[in-house]
């Protein structure tokens, strides 16, 4: 199979998962999530010749996604927002409980980015500590400490969702 064919096959199988991960990372910002996925897939294509010969493409793609998410704060400009003539806001993702989703997303958005990434990788993608450390290029101890801090903050935020949301608005 050609390079492009393999890449398209991978994208078709994993784009949805990447987009859901990106939604959590972006704290519910769907545009930002789409930007992150597109950025990650573009970088993945550039390195596809090397990546496809090794196993763990998904891990590599996750790493690109996480790095794109974390690195964006390092830019002094934010280019992902552009003005458009028409309001083109896609429908929010459907879910069983819209209020809970907003609460969780809002709580995630209040976490520092690395803590947010740790939570998403560990509890959404079900990666163990070592795998998260590899993806985030940090030590396992850092993953554990970031996880502990993130969970503590999430408990505080999610246990009192109404109050939190009120203050957020």
């Amino acid at each position, binding site marked *: 199979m050609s390079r492009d064919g393999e890449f398209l096959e991978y994208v078709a199988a994993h784009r*949805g998962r990447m*987009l859901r991960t990106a939604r959590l990372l972006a704290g519910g910002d769907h545009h930002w999530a789409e930007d992150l996925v597109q950025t990650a*897939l573009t*970088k993945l294509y550039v390195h596809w010749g090397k990546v496809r010969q090794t196993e763990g493409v998904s891990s590599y793609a996750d790493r690109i996604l996480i790095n794109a998410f974390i690195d964006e704060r390092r830019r002094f400009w934010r280019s992902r927002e552009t003005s458009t003539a028409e309001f083109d806001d896609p429908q929010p993702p459907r879910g069983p409980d819209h209020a809970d989703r907003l609460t969780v997303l809002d709580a995630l958005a209040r976490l520092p980015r690395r803590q947010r990434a740790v939570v998403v990788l560990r509890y959404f993608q079900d990666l163990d500590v070592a795998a998260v450390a590899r993806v985030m290029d940090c030590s396992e101890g850092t993953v554990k400490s970031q996880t502990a801090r993130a969970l503590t903050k999430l408990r505080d935020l999610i246990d009192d969702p109404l109050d939190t949301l009120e203050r957020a608005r």
Partner: protein
Amino acid sequence: MTNLKNLLDEAAGSEPQLTDADLTADLTRGRRSLRRRRIAGIATAATGTVAAVGVALSLAPSVGSTDTAAAGDGQQTVTKTCGQLRTDYGLKVTESSVAHEMAEIKLELPGFVAKPAVRPRDGQTVGTITVTNSVWDMVTFTDKPTFTTKGTVQVPPPGEHGWSDEAWRQVARNCLDRSNAVASVKLVASGKQLPGAKLWCDLKPAGWTPVVRPPANGQYRLDFLPPGGGAPLVVSADAKRVNSFTIPSAAKLNSGTQHRFTASCHPVR
């Protein structure tokens, strides 16, 4: 944590319907990025090459300069004056006062291990060395029949591998070929005994072949041919050259005859 996983799973929403347009767009973006990356790589490489060439040209000696040459041990150096060569190689002027009736003439090169001067063997008469003027422009050996004279003007070997050809050229060019400068360098000799002419001479680049030319006007000419051909380093009968010396030819010696061979070094131009 199961609860948190469920909450996250719900918050992430459902997987969107993937369309062909999405796939095509992803592929197009990837190709575009790859193309830009390659162009940037080529541009960077070209810039680097241009910069490297520019630096190299700025550091390289000017083309066609006759002043650039190696001055020792095969290393490239800038052109040196005779004075610099004397300093670099420690050339010393041999005192003319010791030249009379001496069996050896020595050119001292401090810092190098000196070869012992070749002395006449037992039963032989040392040729008389006559310095015709104070600047050593001629050394004459006066021989008698059956004498084997080894007039040795010696220079210690300059280092392990000898001097480079270019170093010799520079010495010859800058120190020997000008009558006002030759006094500063007293050459050479010590190793090569030519057939038919008891000449010991190292006045040549390493690897060069000494050739004694037929005498002309009572003088012999000594050439040194460079390895692989090329213009010879001529040691000719020029009395004005400082390193002139007489070469007695055993085959042509006649009793009471003074054989005088004057040789001097000319730079190869």
